[in-house]
Every structure is written in C-alpha cells, then in structure tokens.
C-alpha cells in the first residue's frame, strides 16, 4: 500500500463466516513466531476470506509483511473480541489515526448501513501515511484528511479536523469512534470529554492468547480491570486509563529490539 504497510487477503472460511466490524484475529507467521493481534479490515463471506492490513513496526509484523502471495500463516484464529455495537445513532464521526483507517473501515461501513450520517477523518503524520482514502470515502458522507505537517488536507492533528467538523455541524455529533495510536486516541478523548460526546476507542494492548486466559491485555476502565481481548477491544474512551495502557504497551521494548536485530543481521551472530 504505502511504505511498510501491506494489505493481505487471507483464506480463512471459518473466520470469514463470522467476522463483524470491530473484531480481530490472532496470527502466527511461522512455527516460532509470536501470536500477534490484527484487526479485521474486511471479510468476504462468499469467498471465505479476511482482509488485514499490517504495519511493519517490529519483528513479527515485518515477517508478515515479507510474506509472498500464496504463502500461508501458521495459525490464524478468530474472530476475537466483541463486535462494534452498530445502531442508528444519528450523526457519527469516525476518526482514524494512520493505520487506524483499516479497522475503522468496516465500522464506518456498518454505521452507514445502519442509517447513520458518517463523517470520517483520517489523520497521519504526513501524506504518505494516509491509507484507504477511497474506501473510507465510499462509506462516509464526508471525509476529511489531516496531516501533522500539512502535506495533505488540514494541517494539524486529527483532533483539529474533528473540531472543524463540529463547527460545521453546529456542534451536533452524537457519537465518536477513534482508532489509532494511543496518543491520538487520547487527544480525541480529551477533546470530546468536555463536550460530553460518547467516544469509543479501540484498545490495542499486548496480547498473547486473545481468549481471556492470560491477562496480558488488561487495561483499566473506570477503575476496573478489563481484559481487552474478551471485554473489548472497544471501550468508552472517557473511562480508559491511557497512561497505564501506554506504559504496558512499551514493556517489552528492549526485547523487541533484540528480536529485530536478529532479523536484520540474519541471526548468525546470536546477538
């Protein structure tokens, strides 16, 4: 798609038969690979396929991005997590940060099908990191782009674009979804909090099994511990403890660097 981001269509009939917007899968690229969670971007029940979009951020995602057409995953399990609660809320804003456009796409589509007026925003650092504009456009009544450096659309953060939407609509937005990096979701949540607009965020903590067995994915919501893989991944953004979530996500950073080093040097050095 764009540098470091690939879109894969995977044959997985059992998953495709059931997947709904907001759910995810857990995959392992090979026998020794980590189990990593990826959101379902699209599903085709007839063809029995699931579409995922993967960004290269570390070892496991890089391995996946190097897969060639016709290769297969060692394991592909899902659909996991609770689907998005789709209703007719009225006018909704779907705010995606960078890669967040992938998980947002089926949600926006389902919201539109349910009769909502969907205003979408894709924000990213620069224009090269903006993906899925055509797809998002097709399922939104309006699509705004924002970039931190102003290389496309509105210059500023996604929250800046959301402020503009609010202004244009006379402050009437009934429901907001925000999916993207934690900092971006937090800024949207802080923006909507004083306005009292219900804002759902999709949490992406580190996961292992994805079935509620290990507790690695626990986050704090309204002071209560929740397991994002079974109680989420969507939660009321105004209740999520983002500081905690961000710290937990960074916990294995040094170990991840070691794995990455092996990928680059071929592993012969044993570093």
């Amino acid at each position, binding site marked *: 798609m764009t540098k470091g981001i690939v879109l894969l269509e995977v044959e997985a009939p059992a*998953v495709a038969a059931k997947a709904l917007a907001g759910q995810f899968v857990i995959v392992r690229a090979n026998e020794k690979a980590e189990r990593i969670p990826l959101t379902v971007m699209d599903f085709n029940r007839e063809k029995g396929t699931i579409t995922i979009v993967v960004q290269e951020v570390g070892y496991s995602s890089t391995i996946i991005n190097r897969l060639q057409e016709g290769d297969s995953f060692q394991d592909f*399990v899902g*659909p*996991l997590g609770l689907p998005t609660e789709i209703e007719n809320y009225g006018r909704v804003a779907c705010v995606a940060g960078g890669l967040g456009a992938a998980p947002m796409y089926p949600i926006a589509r389902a919201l539109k099908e349910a009769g909502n007026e969907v205003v979408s925003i894709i924000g990213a650092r620069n224009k090269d990191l903006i993906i899925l504009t055509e797809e998002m456009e097709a399922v939104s009544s309006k699509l705004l782009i924002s970039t931190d450096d102003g290389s496309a659309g509105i210059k500023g953060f996604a929250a800046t674009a959301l402020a503009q939407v609010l202004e244009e609509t006379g402050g009437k937005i009934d429901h907001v979804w925000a999916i993207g990096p934690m900092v971006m979701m937090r800024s949207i949540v802080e923006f909507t909090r004083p306005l009292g607009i219900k804002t759902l965020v999709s949490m992406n903590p580190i996961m292992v099994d994805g*079935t509620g067995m*290990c507790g690695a994915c626990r986050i704090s919501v309204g002071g209560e511990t929740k397991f994002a893989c079974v109680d989420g991944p969507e939660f009321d953004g105004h209740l999520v403890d983002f500081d905690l979530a961000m710290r937990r996500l960074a916990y294995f950073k040094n170990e991840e660097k070691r794995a990455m080093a092996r990928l680059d040097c071929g592993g012969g050095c044993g570093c």
Partner: protein
Amino acid sequence: MLEKVARQAMPCQEPGERARNFSEVALGYDEETALLEASRCLQCKKPLCRQGCPVEVLIPDFIQLIKERDFMGAARKLKEKNNLPAVCGRVCPQESQCESKCIVGKKGEPVGIGRLERFAADYELAHGSVTPEAAAPTGKKVGIIGAGPAGLTCAADLAKLGYSVTVFEALHVAGGVLMYGIPEFRLPKQVVQTEISNLKKLGVEIKTNMVVGKATSVEELMGKDGFDAVFIGTGAGLPYFMNIPGENLLGVYSANEFLTRSNLMKAYQFPEADTPTKVGKRVAVLGAGNVAMDASRTALRLGAEESIIVYRRSREEMPARHEELEHAEEEGVNFQLLTNPVEIIGDENGVVKGMKCLRYELGEPDASGRRSPVPIPGSEFIMDVDTVVVAIGQGPNPLVTKTTPGLELNRKGNIVADPETFATSKPGVFAGGDIVTGAATVILAMGAGKTAAKAIDAYLKNK
C-alpha cells in the same frame, strides 16, 4: 522371608544444575530400579490402591507385567484405563491418590505406583507405541470442546467405541494446561505431543485455532454441523488476581501469562523463538499450589537471582504436590509463609519495585478444623522485588458458557453437571474437568472425560 526392598528413589538432575536449565528434573527409573520397585507390590487380591485412582488403573496387573519384564504389556495394561500414562506418571499427586491407599504404605512407604507408571509409559514411547483398536463405526458424531486432559480422554474413549470425534481447541496446539501451563522441566512437551499423536491414530480429528463461542458455538455444532452430542472440557483458564493496589503495574503477571510465554511460546528460547518474557532479579510468586511452584521454578530458570513464594498459610496447607514442593525447596526457592501482600509498589515508570506485606499467625481453628491465618498488627514490611507473579487460582472462562443458552451454571460460573454421568442441563451436552470442578487435577479431569464418554455412549445408543 523375603528381604525387604526400600522404596526406590527417583533419580533426578542435581538441584544446582537443574535450577538453571529447562530439561526434565526427574529422570525416570531404569529397568533394574523399576524391577526392584515393582517387587515391592504385594499383588493384593483386593487392591486398595485402585480405589485411589480416579480412572481405576489396573495397578497390580500392570506392576505384575513389569515384574515379568513384559514392559510393553504393562503399557498396554495401563492404556486399558488411562490414555495418557506418561503424563499421569509424572504429574498425578500420587501421595494423595493411588499411593495414599497402598497397603504397603500403611507400615512403611507405599509402592511407587506413579514412578512405575511413568517407567512403563516411557518404555512404550521409546519402543514404538501401542495403539488400541477402535470398534466398528457407529455413524454418530461427537464434538469435544477443549483439548485438555478431559477433552482428549473423552475423545479417545469415544473413538475407541466407534464414534467419529472432532476436538475443537482455541489455542494453536492441543494439550491444554499440559502444554501451556506445566513446564517443560516437569512434563516434556514431546511426551504430551506423542501421546496426542497416538490419539490421532485412533482417528480423532483435532481442529486447533477454533474458539468455540466465537468461530462456532455449541448450538451450531449440534444444529447445522450435525453433532449428536457435545462434551465441554474448556478447563479453568481465567486467571484470578488479588484485587490489591498495583496489580496492573509493569512486571506483574498472571501465572497463566508467565507460564504461557515460557512454555507454549517457548520464551525461554528467546530470541530463537519470537516471544519474549521478562523476569527480574527478585521474583515474588503469590500462592502455593502447583501453579505457584511451576512459576517460581520457571523464574529461577529464566535467570532470576531470587524466587520467593509468598503464602498466607503454613507449609502444611500448601496445596502443591509434595514432590514439587520438595524440588522447589532443593532448587533454592525462598518460602515466605504466613505472609500476605497488601499492595504492589511501583517506581516512577510504573514498574514494580516492591511489595507491601503483612505477617500472619495461625489463629483458632475454624469450622473446617483448619487454623485460619490472622494478620499480626504492625507487622507490615516491604519486600524487595521487581517482578510479581499472581498464582492464586483460575476460574471458568465464560466464552462457551455465555454463548450456550440453557446451560446451568453455579455461582462461580462453573457448569453444573451430574456427578455420575457428567450430563449438563442441556440435552446431549456433557461437561467435565476443571470447567465443572474448578481448578483440580489432570487425573480428575481425565476421569471425568472417561465417565462422560461412557455416558455419551449410553445416551446415543438410546437416542
């Protein structure tokens, strides 16, 4: 009068050495030792030992075959009742089961039934396996949810009776706790996988990566998928936390996460395997069951300088198998008994740097006759640790139970099943193992799987 033979000790790796590697701790009997141990069995006419075994292994019979040096025959005899003898010989709490009833144990030490069981099973694994024969196909299909000991046992017995059996497993490998929980140094994963491949030879199909409640449901299995009966053996996979402040700090793991990373994902081979785990210098493990022993010993092997078991009661009340407790002590695990944490303390980055604890003393006996621990006022102190593993128990995972209407649950969320047949409130649906009893033992789960298989057979014959 025969010369009295003493109970043969289990050869083990030296504690100092093994505490730093993941190879199996107990090495198993050789033939001569096994023959000596077998010679201690009196071949009782009314073998009390069998009453202590939930699957009623033909104990004197298999030991007799060992005496006769017919080791394959012994393995075959074991498998008449127990599909996973190499596993049970290693992990059964024999001291409170078969061996607790052995007549020889009344005056001295009981016959090492578990050790002999392991010997015969390992002999079979090393010398080609015995696959029991399956009966003629009945044309009926049974679905099994969960590939732990309960599900696998039920599957094998039904396959032997001629049913077409499919096992649905959420994880990427079959085995349940045997794969993700119990560590390599206590139960080599190769042993588990060989046992499972024997089941496959019986025609059992195992579908991994299938989360029932998500990708499919009990209703669907019994509806459009045409299964005539379903057995639920989903175990106790939901980790409990203490609900004390600081439990979401970095460096606090559930035992399930800690052990899953190490066992299932082979984090101990990191970075050759891709999943990392992190163990600090000083690890506190909360709890004193098998799970806690496994976590504390795994921590040592992953490089912790000190591994500390923190437990509210005293040594006598520890629920772990004796052998594990002894092994942990020999390996240098530090036991802080009559001690309970009240808060986990973090540094400015949210990483564990200590744990506030209280000391306890044993008070008056309670209704159960056990002296209950009471906190000592003013005994508060800070334990210097950087990793905390919570191993205080697991509950039932609701993925299946929540998506199956008409299934009666108890207050804790366990499935209610008839103790005789393991039938649930939903016709055609049976359940057994930890999902019914709460976290228990491998052999009880297997016993449940076995009994349920008989009941399912009876149910389907009458249907």
